[in-house]
């Protein structure tokens, strides 16, 4: 018998070509773009990175965490800590942020993995709150009121002088360009890593564990191993993003860095309205989110209420999100992971 296993679709081939063009354009964008556009894009890239990691956890792994703000906050605080206490440059400190978030994920997973479903969600939230309260005791980093990156550290961040010379611009603009590039690299690497993971056999195992734990075990999948791998990877990516966000903000406080609304509720909103369990969903979701924010943010509480309402409506009428709606109608998949078996009937008849 003859067969082919296909993952690519014609839309995904177009998407690959589109991405190959878009990435270089995105890198040279600071040459033309205004500072406010770069700041908007920084926001999009960092929120999208957080959303992709949460989507990997919840949409592919079935691990619905509402405690990801623990890793944003921990990554950000570790970055501030290495800058202020050890005198590192902020750029390599971002990496330290990712690593410390990864370390925090070890005890978090150890406790939270004993819980299932809604209990797991609440457990992760509780652990995040404990982390926030603990960090607020860290007097050298400002305790409960927080602190700023020292001027000596922000004045000569790695690469900033080079960017200043290259673009012939002020330090503050050069810092925004640096943050933009780092966020761009981070979001590209995140999507590439997640897409690669889903295309390997570990991606299959992750889906199997999500769909049916008992059956996954019975066909030789080790659910614990795959859950740990996913959770640790998501914590590392989330920690890096947190550190980068706060390098750009240059000011930190426990309430802001460990905010469940900013770093988990918004992220869940992005994934849910965009389409959970797809890579395209969060991309669409973050754009919708930014539009809603720029339209409604001046309405204060009404903004949050309308976000909630939109979330509920999407969950009720388009449970697979806007991308799910679009993809069901058109059959388009930009990042396909499904392995389709195409049998060649003619050949198999001859045989």
């Amino acid at each position: 018998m003859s067969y082919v296993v296909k993952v690519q679709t014609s839309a995904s081939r177009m998407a690959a070509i589109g991405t190959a063009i878009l990435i270089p354009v995105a890198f040279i964008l600071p040459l033309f773009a205004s500072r406010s556009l770069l700041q908007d894009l920084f926001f999009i890239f960092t929120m999208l990175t957080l959303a992709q990691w949460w989507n990997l956890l919840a949409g592919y792994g079935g691990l619905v965490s509402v405690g990801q703000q623990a890793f944003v906050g921990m990554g950000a605080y570790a970055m501030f800590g290495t800058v202020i206490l050890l005198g590192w440059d902020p750029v390599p400190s971002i990496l330290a942020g990712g690593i410390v978030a990864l370390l925090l994920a070890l005890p978090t997973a150890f406790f939270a993995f004993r819980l299932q479903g809604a209990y797991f969600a609440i457990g992760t939230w509780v652990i995040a709150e404990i982390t926030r309260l603990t960090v607020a005791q860290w007097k050298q980093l400002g305790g409960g009121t927080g602190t700023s990156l020292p001027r000596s550290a922000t004045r000569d961040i790695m690469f900033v002088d080079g960017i200043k010379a290259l673009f012939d611009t002020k330090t503050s603009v050069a810092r925004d360009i640096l943050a933009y590039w780092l966020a761009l690299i981070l979001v590209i690497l995140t999507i590439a890593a997640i897409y690669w993971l889903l295309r390997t056999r570990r991606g299959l195992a992750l889906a199997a564990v999500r769909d049916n734990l008992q059956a996954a075990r019975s066909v030789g999948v080790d659910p614990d191993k795959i859950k740990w791998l996913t959770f640790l990877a998501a914590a590392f990516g989330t920690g890096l993003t947190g550190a980068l966000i706060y390098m750009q903000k240059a000011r930190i406080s426990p309430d802001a860095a460990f905010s469940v609304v900013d770093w988990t509720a918004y992220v869940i909103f992005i994934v849910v309205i965009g389409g959970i369990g797809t890579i395209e969903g969060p991309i669409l979701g973050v754009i919708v989110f930014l539009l809603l924010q720029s339209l409604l943010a001046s309405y204060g509480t009404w903004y949050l209420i309308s976000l909630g309402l939109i979330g509920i409506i999407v969950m009720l009428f388009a449970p697979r999100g806007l991308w799910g709606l679009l993809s069901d109608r058109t059959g388009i998949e930009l990042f396909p992971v499904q392995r389709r078996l195409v049998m060649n009937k003619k050949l198999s008849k001859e045989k």
Partner: protein
Amino acid sequence: MSILSISKLCKSFGFLKVADEISFDVPAGQALGIIGPNGAGKSTLFNLITGNISSDGGQIFFQNEDITQVSPMKRTLSGIGRSFQIPQPFDKLTVFENLLVAGTFGRNLDEAKTTDNCVEILQETGLAKHVNLPAGQLSLLERKRLELARALATNPELLLLDEIAGGLTQGECDSLVATIKSIHEKGVTIIWIEHVLHALTSVVEHLLVLDFGRVIAIGDPGEIMKSKEVREIYLGIEV
């Protein structure tokens, strides 16, 4: 040579003894049927053999190795495959991907190296028409076939079937039995729990009767079904 050897296996849930010093041997290549009333401990016995639940005492030998403390995943790798009483497909994965998971992780192979085998099994089990359909959309018969196919994809030497013919129409049942027969003819050892007796007895060479976690009888199906005790326990007939 026996492929599976169980010795004084015990398991209790609270005061309820679901496995009470169960001992029996299964020679390689045999098809053994297990019958018994509801709650006799049949599915529990399967869960003990696959390691989904741990035993309170006794030993399980598979291919002369003590696997009593071995994890379910390693038991699958060493050649024990199973189907579930209530089909447990990976709903959002396609039929082909369901087999692919089993073929890669159950045999520790790359996707490409196990695909040939998966395609063969899909044709053998009559699922070739639905390869790219999400498993959640299958009918009951197709789900049962998928249970069988997925277990086969792990390349088992011992295949445990849990009421795979239950709930099917006569025609569906017959075609499934034919598939199971052909698998058995290839030399796969089968242990099959079933209430649909005519399906069971058309395949198995040996029959084991379980009641309250104890082995009541084991031997030739014809003789066992004639036995007074078995008829009383299993069929509820006053003799």
